[in-house]
């Protein structure tokens, strides 16, 4: 069981046995220890049972009742005391990991993140940087040379959720009216997947979670970009439509694949008299109810009910990982969220095709 799990773990990024962070790794080691003890107990008990079943089966022609044995105090004591010793061992092993993970001291270098669970998405706040984002958590790598763990405070805006990224740590619940804490110190850069692990309503299944572990430089770049408000970039809006790349930590996409370029192909079938442009889209966005729930920092949009859209285009997925962040998906999502996520709390606003295209064009500028 152990080896096959490890083999499968190699192909899955969500295995609890392919760990990249101290809280998960400590649990992983404990798990192997417990597995070995349990496997030994199982082998012992089941071999005795199989032996007894073979040895003492009724043979044809045997009609005498076997000797009746009613019990033995010594034997009962033996199989009381031995399990007690096993339990003491297991408990001490557990207690060591339990206290070292749960009561770990927060170093001064730690990154603080506040995680707020919502039906059915994640809000991440970085109080040290005054940054708010959603669904895709960026944290710096914590190498042995430069340890920078991330300490999270978790709470919920509505019902109970649970934060679970198996490679990084066990889960911690997010409860309304309460703040829980957990920490991770990812040792390797990369994207780690997880999802909500406490049933929270209709779209619990699509409350997915991505943790981007960046190199310290990438993380600084990402933070710097997130700190910009759209007010500062508004003047370059027209220009930015034609500039390729998604502005995410310097990893530009090829020009032919840029959201803006692809957006034009999406907007064409609308066949409208006036070209779709992001400036009109911004006005439309602000005229509609969008701004009641969404924030775009630097504009009048300051709603807090839905995800912060200030840097929507810096994210790889939409709607808490329900689909890739492509212009087509974005436009369809705005048209009717229930196509992707029936039960999503974002309503279909009954926009016209043109309004939808305009708002999409605007959102595509939010890099």
């Amino acid at each position: 069981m152990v080896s096959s799990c490890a083999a499968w773990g190699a192909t899955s990024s969500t295995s609890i046995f392919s760990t990249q962070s101290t809280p998960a790794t400590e649990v992983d080691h404990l798990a192997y220890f417990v597995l070995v003890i349990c496997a030994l107990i199982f082998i012992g008990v089941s071999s005795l049972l199989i032996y007894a079943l073979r040895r003492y089966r009724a043979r044809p022609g045997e009609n005498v009742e076997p000797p009746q044995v009613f019990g033995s105090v010594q034997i009962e004591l033996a199989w009381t005391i031995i399990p007690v010793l096993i339990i003491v061992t297991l408990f001490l092993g557990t207690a060591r990991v339990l206290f070292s993970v749960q009561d770990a001291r927060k170093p001064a270098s730690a990154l603080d993140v506040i995680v707020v669970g919502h039906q059915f998405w994640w809000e991440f706040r970085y109080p040290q940087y005054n940054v708010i984002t959603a669904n895709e958590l960026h944290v710096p790598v914590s190498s042995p040379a430069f340890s920078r763990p991330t300490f999270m405070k978790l709470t919920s805006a509505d019902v109970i959720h649970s934060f679970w990224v198996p490679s990084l740590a066990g889960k911690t619940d997010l409860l309304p009216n309460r703040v829980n804490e957990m920490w991770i110190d990812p040792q390797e850069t990369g994207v780690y997947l997880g999802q909500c692990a406490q049933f929270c309503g209709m779209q619990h299944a699509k409350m997915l979670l991505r943790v981007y572990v960046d190199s310290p430089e990438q993380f600084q770049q990402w933070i710097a970009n997130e700190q910009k408000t759209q007010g500062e970039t508004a003047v370059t809006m027209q220009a930015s439509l034609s500039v390729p790349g998604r502005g995410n930590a310097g990893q530009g996409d090829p020009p032919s694949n840029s959201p803006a370029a692809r957006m034009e192909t999406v907007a064409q079938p609308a066949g409208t008299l006036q070209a779709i442009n992001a400036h009109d889209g911004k006005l439309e966005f602000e005229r509609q109810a969008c701004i009641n729930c969404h924030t775009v920092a630097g504009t009048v949009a300051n709603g807090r009910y839905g995800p912060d859209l200030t840097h929507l285009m810096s994210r790889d997925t939409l709607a808490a990982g329900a689909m890739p962040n492509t212009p087509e998906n974005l436009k369809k999502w705005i048209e009717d969220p229930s196509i992707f996520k029936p039960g999503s709390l974002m309503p279909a606003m009954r926009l016209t095709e043109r309004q939808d295209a305009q708002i999409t064009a605007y959102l595509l500028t939010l890099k």
Partner: protein
Amino acid sequence: MGTDTPGIPIGGGIEAGIDRTRPHATRGTYLEVVHSWIVTVDHKKLGILYISYALVFLLVAGVEALMIRVQLFFPHNTFVTPATFNRLFTMHGTTMVFLMGMPLLFGFGNYLVPLMIGARDMAFPRLNAFSFWISAFAGLLLYYSFIGGVGLAGTGSAPDVAWFAYAPLTERAFSPGHTVDYWAIAILASGIGSIGTAINIIATVFCMRCKGMTLMRIPLLPWLYATMSFLTLITISPLTAAQAMLLIDRYLGGHFFDTQAGGSAILWAHFFWIFGHPEVYVLILPGFAFANEIIPVFSRKAIFGYSAMVAASVGIAFISTGVWAHHMFTIGMTSFGNAFFTLSTMLVSIPTGIKTFNWLATVWGGRIRFETPMLFSIAFLFQWVIAGLTGIMLSISAWDWQLHNSYFVVAHFHYVLVGALVFIVFAAIYYWYPKITGRMLDERLGKWHFWLMVIGFHMTFDVMHFPGLLGMPRQIYTYEPDRGWTLMNQIVSIGGFIQAIAVLILVYNMVHSYFRGDEAGPDPWDAWTLEWSIPSPPPPYNFAIDPVVASRRPLWDLKHPEDPDSAFE
């Protein structure tokens, strides 16, 4: 009475007491038969009603499980909508625990406890009937929710908040409409029925025993039922209180669990699990009770360590009331709290270990007959050991941070409730069906049932552990194709259908054998407890003459006057 065989106080008495005529009640019209079942206060008829009611819900909740498994066969499958899926798993869990598990076990308890302690009925026959009918009402109410509201296709107002119904999802802000009301009121009503039956069983075991049956001569089945009933009394009460509080929140402006008004979500979790964990033992103790009766008979040996078994059962009941927060290791308890509940949970494994080893020692040195009840009991033993070991893994609070709410947990508790409980219940059905109906179940169909069940069970629930280890949470209506969970989910689903076929074979066997089965006679298994001393099915009065016992195995004394148990007790 008993005078013709001096030295064996029970023997002659029972023999003389046997009513050898099969009861031929005049059947009357169809309406009269139905009427007689509705107004009955006979513990045997109520037991049969309970068992049939539970078996119907077993099929219903089984269909729900199959629909869940079809939906999860492919990633991003659209067999049912997310809303329907959430209703399906909520109803599957609620039904299996409250409408299948408890009624089924209360049914066996109702039928067997008076027979095994030599009583003519339960202590409170009318309370017994009331308990059954209020439970039946709860089941009908819960299932009416499917057609309430917008009807079947939209699945009406069926509850969709998971079987543990965590607050504040159940508050009106997050669950408008009546889904939660159906759930809460049905649980409340069935809880009243459970409390009634628990009181009844306790009173019966402690007040209605036949002459000579001291506490330490009670067969283990009534002993465990009494223990389980105490546990029911203790644990159903907080559950019922929590339902009342939830309804107060929803309709009278209370704020117990309403977090938006300062209530506590954790409070509900404590209330629910202080019921929910002992509930597992409420369900499994009767399972142990069946094993305690069946394994000795088919090993042809007395149970090993009777007093240790009694002590272990009572010990399980005590300890199990102090472990509930192991369902809450991720909810944000202090490290000390987590450590406490780790240790208390591990302690349960000591009495359960004692029981397991005693069954092993009972088999040891016996002369084992591999008939269908014993086959199911052996599978129960193996699966119970595995379920116990995965339980130990889950009690390791630090590891539970990973395993909690994953498919590993789902696999674990299905190992307990299907691998152990349902298997031993099947053993009990094969073992006592001849007593209840007077006919033997077909042995060949029984073997088919057994082997298909074993294959299906292990395909489903062995494999189900692995998606959990690979990060698959429970209660999700679909999953992403890139996670590596697809193949495992498909094996799990196929296994589910094999189990369904096995259960249909049992249903066919029960119906077929009722009409065509071999005559059972009073004692087809050559067993030792009092229910086998009277005809099958037993007459309404059970015992023509009150039996008198001198040991735990009165029929052994009767059959082996040269070596009676009474000489050793």
